[in-house]
């Protein structure tokens, strides 16, 4: 305990001395989040300063081993660091797929050489990564991917196409699923490889969504050479790594359901449409739907709280965790539909200041994708039915 206190004192002093004032201001837009990379995008030059300072101590990724540039902190120390950052309102110094996705995969499945080559630049925010999983003809059936890597001795030649590659147009490197073998079951023969997006033969094109522009891209590989040292894990065993990362991703997406504070939907509706003498929203049938939504949000929150508490108590991750992605995203879709009802015409605007550039409508349309990306609702229900309820395959 006293060690922790010492750490707290030191961390506090260091943060006070090193965190620029401009980085103690709350994040207001996506541009305020620093993702690093060769050509980093910044809303303020201090973003890089702050990242560099934190990276020097490995505190951009405090729990990774110091051998790979991380902070080497214990869980408890990490918690203290976060608390101290929160105390002064310090922004996270760096956020990237390298930290959240590739790093954990490399730590678990990569060889020593790969860890030493790729992890430190992630910690320092020098290389920005993207993820090459989905393909146009695979969809939910991720394992039936067709991008193929031909064996050329010391390297592969990759040909194919990926879709939904977030920020592919801004990333420096990609971690990518490719097919190295066609002969076995479709889950076999998939390999997990890394390569530079600047390699000749790689092109990307941003995807416009029904909600407007998006971070998603289509990515094309035309005879792209990839050195074999950039194969992670065994050849043909990439599906294991992919599954590991997918679970990770679903847990992140499920947090969509948690509605943000401010006025509740019901109160906003009363504000827009008025209440009767008993205080009940005048739009009576809307009122029930809102109440049902709020009720389910409350219960869903309790479920997340319960699963977390059980896990902390060492009871393991209960079956309820399997519903998070499904229920959370469906809930978010309901919330967005309700916002349309509650805000009426103001929610249907698309452009112009009057409509905050279509903020509500675009969020509503974007929410439709929540139950598709990261495993569709249908796939989630299949998983619950089979793995949790033990119902047989068709």
């Amino acid at each position, binding site marked *: 305990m006293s060690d922790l206190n010492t750490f707290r004192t030191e961390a506090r002093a260091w943060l006070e001395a090193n965190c620029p004032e401009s980085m103690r201001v709350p994040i207001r837009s996506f541009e305020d989040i620093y993702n690093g990379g060769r050509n980093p995008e910044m809303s303020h030059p201090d973003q890089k300063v702050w990242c560099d300072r934190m990276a020097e101590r490995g505190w951009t990724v405090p729990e990774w081993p110091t051998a790979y540039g991380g902070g080497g902190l214990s869980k408890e120390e990490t918690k203290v660091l976060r608390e101290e950052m929160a105390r002064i309102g310090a922004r996270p110094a760096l956020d990237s797929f390298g930290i959240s996705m590739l790093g954990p995969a490399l730590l678990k499945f990569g060889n020593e050489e790969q860890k030493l080559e790729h992890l430190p630049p992630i910690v320092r925010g020098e290389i920005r990564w993207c993820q090459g999983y989905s393909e146009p003809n695979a969809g939910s059936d991720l394992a039936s991917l067709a991008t193929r890597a031909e064996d050329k001795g010391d390297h592969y030649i990759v040909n194919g196409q990926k879709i939904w590659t977030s920020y592919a147009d801004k990333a420096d490197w990609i971690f990518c699923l490719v097919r190295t073998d066609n002969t076995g079951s479709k889950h076999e023969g998939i390999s997990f490889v890394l390569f530079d997006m600047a390699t000749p033969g790689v092109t990307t094109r941003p995807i416009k969504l*029904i909600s407007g522009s998006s971070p998603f891209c289509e990515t094309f590989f035309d005879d792209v050479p990839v050195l074999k040292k950039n194969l992670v894990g065994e050849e043909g065993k990439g599906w294991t790594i992919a599954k590991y990362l997918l679970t990770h991703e679903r847990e992140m997406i499920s947090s969509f359901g948690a509605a943000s504070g401010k006025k509740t939907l019901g109160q906003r509706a009363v504000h827009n449409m008025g209440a009767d003498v008993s205080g009940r929203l005048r739009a009576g*049938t809307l009122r029930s739907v809102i109440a049902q939504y709020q009720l389910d949000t409350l219960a869903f929150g309790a479920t997340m709280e319960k699963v977390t508490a059980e896990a902390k108590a060492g009871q393991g991750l209960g079956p309820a965790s399997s519903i998070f992605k499904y229920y959370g995203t469906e809930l978010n879709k309901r919330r967005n539909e309700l916002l349309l009802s509650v805000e009426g015409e103001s929610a249907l605007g*698309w452009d112009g200041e009057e409509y905050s550039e279509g903020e509500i409508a675009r969020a509503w349309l974007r929410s439709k994708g929540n139950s598709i990306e990261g495993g569709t609702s249908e796939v989630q229900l299949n998983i619950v039915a089979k793995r949790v309820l033990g119902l047989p395959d068709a």
Partner: protein
Amino acid sequence: MSLVLNEEEIMLRDSAAGFLAETANVEAFRKHRDNPPPTGFDQALWGSIAEMGWCGIAIDEAHGGLGYGFTGLGLIIEQMGKNLTVSPFNSTVLMAGTAIAQFGTEAQKQEWLPKIAAGEVVMALAIQEGSHFDLEGLSTSVLAQGDGFAVKAEKRQVLDAMGADAYVVVGKDASGYQAFVVAADQVSIRDQSMVDARSSGTVAIDATLSADAQMDIESLNKGGLERALDVINIGLAAELLGVSVEAFERTVGFLRERKQFGKVIGSFQGLQHRAADLFAELELCKAIVLKGLRAVDAGDDLSGLASAVKAKLAQISQRATNEGVQMHGGIGMTDEYDIGFFIKRARVLEHTLGDFHYHLDRYALQGGY
């Protein structure tokens, strides 16, 4: 009143379907969306529509129309929904035309209905204030002033406000509803960019209108306004029907083709049951829309029915378009693919003159509970 289309009606529907699929289809809508004309509509298409006589189909012969009836109009509107056609047909013919026929003075009918029937004028209905349509909540915006009236109001979500030559403006004075036919130079218009990429705007009026601009205050207040809105909502429901059925048919087509996990996804029972249940609901929608159209033509009391029709179509159009995106998966989320257009059109249509909740509430109230 028989809920079956006769041969003539089937011919009308099929010829409208043929023309629109050729000329004013979803591809044309995409072009319009990417490059909208300043008036909000394509003059050439509007001309062709007028030439076919569709504008006068529900207007009586005494006022320059064909007197064919409202069912025919509904069939055309349904096809426009299927094709996401953009034209000032709804604003001029369905909305302003119905309003003038229901509560215009005889002079106004003589002046405007023949022009509407001939497609010579573009008109719009300006009624909503604030973010939600709420007839009871209209502000007092009209004051008698000498021989005329001082009118000051801001009307929102006015379809085709930008390109209209004249407006039917509905407001209130201390004793009831008031309505006027107002020329474009007496109002100021501001473009509203809506999610469905049709032309819509805010109509602000702050003017003194002469007495002959005033519409028939008696019929207006003795049920004419409610009936006009009921008729219009049944017409909007017909468009929602077209939107929903087309979104559904495209989705079922996709389910028949798309493969996942080595199988056509339409073979998965989970999707089959959802599609089949939605099919059932759409059959109900087809029937109740036709019932609504026939009731207009029969001169039946529409209270209860019109709100039922709109509420049902509002509800099922939500489901049909949501399922459309979900069942298409990732590709359904892209702007490049057309299914997203249907969800956008559906919601704006729903919110025009009262959404699901507004009409379900009204339906219950009219049912005595």
